[in-house]
């Protein structure tokens, strides 16, 4: 199972847990299973069936461009981090 690091401001939705072990082959599956376990978390991470524009996902050490479609290996770490980009147009979003 992947180890999902819960963003600090979402830990209140997860009983204060810093990490949660979740099975899933993609970030989408991971998020869906998180939602089943901790209702409301998907809405905080996603909008219109995509990760929110201000959020990126890192699987292991690498920030993925695939968003919810990113593949997740069984022993991966999954992190939700602020989106940054080339010229940082990403930081224009809100």
């Amino acid at each position, binding site marked *: 199972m992947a180890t999902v*690091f819960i*963003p*600090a*401001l*979402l*830990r209140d939705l997860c009983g204060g847990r*810093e990490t949660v072990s979740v099975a899933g082959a993609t970030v989408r599956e991971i998020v869906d299973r998180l939602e089943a376990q901790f209702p409301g978390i998907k*809405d*905080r*991470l*996603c*909008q219109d069936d995509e990760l*929110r*524009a*201000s*959020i990126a996902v*890192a699987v*292991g*050490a*690498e*920030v993925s*461009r695939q968003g919810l479609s990113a593949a997740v290996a069984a022993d991966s*770490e999954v*992190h939700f*981090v*602020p*989106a*940054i*980009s*080339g*010229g*940082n*147009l*990403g*930081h*224009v*979003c*809100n």
Partner: protein
Amino acid sequence: MAQVFQVIGTRPIRHDGLDKVTGRAQYGADIQLSGMLHGRVLRSSHAHARIKSIDASAALKVPGVEAVATAADLPESGDRIAHLGEGAVNLRHLSSNCLARGKVHYKGQAVAALAATNPHIAEEALALIKVDYEPLPPVMDVREAMKDSAPKLHADVFTEEMGQLKKDKPSNVAKHFQFKLGDVHKGFAQAAVTVEREFHTATVHQGYIEPHNATAMFNPDGNVTIWCSTQGAFTVRAQVSELLQIPVSRIKVVPLEIGGGFGGKIRVYLEPVAAVLSKKTGKPVKILMDRAAVFEGTGPTPGSYIRVKLGADKTGKLVAGEAYLAYEAGAFPGSPIGPGAMCIFACYDIPNVLIDGFDVCVNKPATAAYRAPGATNAAFASETVVDEICRQLKIDPLEFRLKNGAKEGTRRADGPIYPRIGMIETVEAAKKHPHYVAPLAPGSSPFPRGRGVASGFWFNIGLKSSVTASVNNDGTVSLVEGSTDIGGTRVSVAMQLAEALGIRAEDVRPVVADTDSVGYTDVTGGSRVTYATGWAAYEAAQDIKWQMLEKAAQLWKTDLDNVVYDKGVIRAKDDPAKKITFKELAEKIQHKGGIVVGRATVDPPWPGGAFATHIVDVEVDPDTGKVSILRYTAVQDCGKAIHPSYVEGQIQGGAVQGIGWALNEEYAYNAKGEMTNASFLDYRMPTSLDLPMIDAVIVEVPDPKHPYGVRGVGEVPIVPPPAAIANAIYAAVGVRMNELPMSPGRVVKALAAKK
């Protein structure tokens, strides 16, 4: 085993060098088209005001004036987020930043534009556009703007906390987020030394030499061509498409040579306005900014307030870190607070961390990216506190970094674990460098001298790049790429193609193409072009090699398995006499109807990140507060330096900009929120006359993912200078500077306070 290179690591003359040194290179201002009109932009005279009405009737009566544009000419974008390939943007805000809708949020914001038959008429008529404003109180400081009582810039901006909007009341605080690792309370309880300090940094501009410009030609068939100075032609295309509701297929963006960008030439300002004026007049329209418009109307990097607390045990091991960062977004949400917060402790392995970040709107221009966005502010704070801890514990600052520095396996505060990185290697190289080994030399002047060090981190990124490469019958290769060339990337990309093919760099002819002529390519930013576009060139070379092997096999009537490509020579495995060079084969296949075109598009994983450690010696005049840089050494992990001269140039350029942040540069505002130093005479950037030679030291810890180990080099050298200089000032005169710039006045004030 380290790779052995023929081309990489050499220093060929850049392909665009001759055109640039002889003045033949074409920049945006050089564009001349038949029947072209000249546009000018009217900018807000208020820092914060409601626009009650705009009356352009008098301007339109001036002979030669052909059209006026206001926000009413831009489609309503709605409150949509558009994904523009390399990031997302709120289109309503972007549109209002091009032509203000309803309100102005900073002095210098574009309000209206007109096109006339010559620039003089345009300027004269611009003064006749009457804008009726209802002035509102501005808020210029990040901490003032965070107060409940502060004037609100937007009625519809609420604080977002990780996907949750606090919709009870509008706020200038557009975003708050938090990183938490371990338990900071337990961590600080273990500390033998704890230091907590507050810092302020000024609003500073990228200071690119070439002002923004755009020329647009809107054809009756609905197609539009835009010539401009940009870091990303495809990103301009995407923004114009979204703002004007035109399909991307109807927009061609031609990137001209670019006189600097540093992150500031990604967002559009003039391009959609020129397109609207061209559509209205049926003629091409060119708009140029002057320097004042660049300062007042385009995105600088944010001013900030940062509080940092660090704790170390008695052995000098960092045990806890806490940071509070509030960055000025300017007129619209979107400061680089995310990367700033991710970078603030990124050089260190700290088990217990708590970081809060805030994105705050103020009545200044909407901030834009600037070389390692957000990281320089953050490093000024954290690296100054690190220095103070080193002094309290009496530990050499480089030894401290060796003990605490991030390495492969270190978990950063925002979560991810580092892959192979080179932080420690930069510190080791700095420690051995003659600059650090030599004692600080006393000068002939009586002024006190001091030495400081600081480290810095920046992510570097991957993103998408495309190239095509056509083999010519003289054995050269025409390389078409989509990455605009700011810092010599034509040559660094061409060298990677040449290395892979086993030909000379001079035998590659690189061209930066328009959006109709090359595959999608993300912006020149994030230190990504040599990394990602270079990777694309490498892949295109593999495509060419494969095709050349096929041609050789056909020529020799043998199986493909029987031919090999080795450093620019194709050989038959079963017959040593059968060999042909790349150049010979290129000539032969041309006559036999064969054409070889390689192509590649890549979206590579991000590189492992870049680290730098800088050493500086300064001299401080205690009477005037002037700080002189005596010696400066910048050590940086570059992965693999493709063209060492341009790597050194990036390191030197970044360091000089960081020195400007440290000692001189700031937007000066009066009480009305008006910038009072919007010229290069009054906004003081360092020149070659102010500085010694920057000694750039290249450390190479190859990125294991990249074919040649490239990491990217352009951004991290700006990160350490302010902290390194602040630490050197302390070493010289015993005062801790906690505000940028450390201008003579502030140094004198700090010295007086010490007495």
